[in-house]
């Protein structure tokens, strides 16, 4: 159940329309929204000749506060509980602290605005969050021609599985939010390299194996009362998932996140991160179970 949601915004990427579209979560017990704005330290840091930028800090804090008061009034008026954090510091660290303090069940965050070079040196906020948190992280963004899926982002999720433990957790998660779901499409993207052999048989075997495993997942979802269909795609995983989401007219991509450490991810990349950062669809990342 999702009782409390932490909504992290820099305002330019996620506004009140995004908050409103998430209110369908009230059907699965959402009763408390906590807004969060993190002022990155370098925006107000000490600079030679300027000193500590106290007035800039105040300006940023008060601008955020004014926006949040407006949003909070609207949510209070419909009986929701609302809280606010405006913090200075590192985004991932501050969000992690707020999740612990508030015992939030879901983190919603906009797409990272960092350039590829910045991400390489300082890491992606999304990657950092998923590494630190055990609660799911929704990287939220308006789908082109379908902004915030008309208020029902959880209606038609595409579950992209790589058979990992986190992918299995993602199935459990979808079952827990069943009232919001109309249909789940389950997809596995078979790596091209597995098919680039001399034998047609090998390709067919890879497809058959994936299809059988996908059907097991569909059966679990169907047993819980959620209509589900399976699809096998071939190619690079991130591209395959994107293509599947478009063709299935999905409202969101759901996937288990890897537990690779920061340096491994930085050098060889991560499929969940690539999808979360680059996909046109909102992406729900389910972390692996923590010990």
């Amino acid at each position, binding site marked *: 159940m999702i009782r409390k949601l932490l909504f992290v915004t820099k305002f330019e990427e996620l506004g009140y329309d995004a908050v409103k579209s998430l209110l369908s979560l009230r059907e699965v017990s959402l009763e408390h929204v906590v807004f969060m704005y993190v002022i990155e330290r370098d925006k107000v840091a000490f600079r030679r000749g300027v000193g500590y930028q106290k007035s800039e800090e105040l300006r940023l804090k008060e601008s955020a506060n004014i926006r949040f008061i407006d949003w*909070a009034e609207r949510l209070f008026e419909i009986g929701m509980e609302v*809280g606010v954090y405006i913090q200075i510091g590192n985004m991932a660290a501050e969000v992690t602290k707020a999740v612990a*303090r508030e015992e939030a069940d879901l983190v919603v965050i906009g797409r990272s605005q960092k350039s590829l070079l910045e991400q390489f040196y300082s890491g992606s906020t999304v990657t950092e969050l998923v590494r630190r948190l055990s609660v799911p992280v929704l990287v939220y963004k308006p789908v082109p021609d379908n902004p915030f899926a008309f208020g029902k982002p959880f209606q038609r999720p595409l579950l992209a599985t790589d058979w990992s433990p986190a992918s299995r957790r993602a199935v459990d998660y979808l079952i827990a939010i069943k009232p919001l779901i109309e249909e789940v499409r389950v997809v596995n993207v078979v790596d091209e390299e597995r098919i680039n052999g001399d034998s047609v048989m090998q390709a067919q075997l890879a497809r058959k194996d994936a299809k059988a495993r996908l059907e097991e997942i569909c059966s679990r979802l169907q047993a819980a009362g959620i209509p589900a269909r399976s699809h096998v795609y071939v190619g690079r995983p991130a591209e395959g998932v994107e293509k599947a989401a478009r063709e299935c007219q999905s409202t969101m991509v759901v996937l288990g996140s890897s537990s690779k450490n920061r340096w491994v991810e930085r050098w060889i990349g991560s499929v969940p991160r690539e999808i979360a950062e680059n996909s046109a669809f909102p992406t729900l990342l389910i972390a692996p179970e923590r010990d």
Partner: protein
Amino acid sequence: MGKRVLVVDDDPDVRVFNTTVLEENGYSPEEAVNGEEALQAIRAAPPDLVMLDVLMPRQSGIRLYRTLKTDPALKAVKIILLSGIARASFLKSQQALTEFGGQPVPEPEYYLEKPVDAEVLAAAVKKAIG
């Protein structure tokens, strides 16, 4: 020692302002940073007055107000709401919570929208608890 006033606000600047005004007017201020912490303090030793913000982490002033006003042991505690949230929104939220099956609660006697002058604040406290 003056009458005890519990100042509940997550903003340290606001707490400093409010407690200073209270001390200058002969009251004994205490502090809490959110609704949960405030409720613990109130249950431990009910103050003469609670000066309550609305939008706070952990538990808002809306829920704390409702808890206090529906608890027979605590409903006599005087409350001044002091918030950036409009009074109309506060009232609508209480109405919505009552419609969802909660107990009806009385409208707040004192609701001040931030920012508030020191004189106005002191006058409201004096009117509430003398």
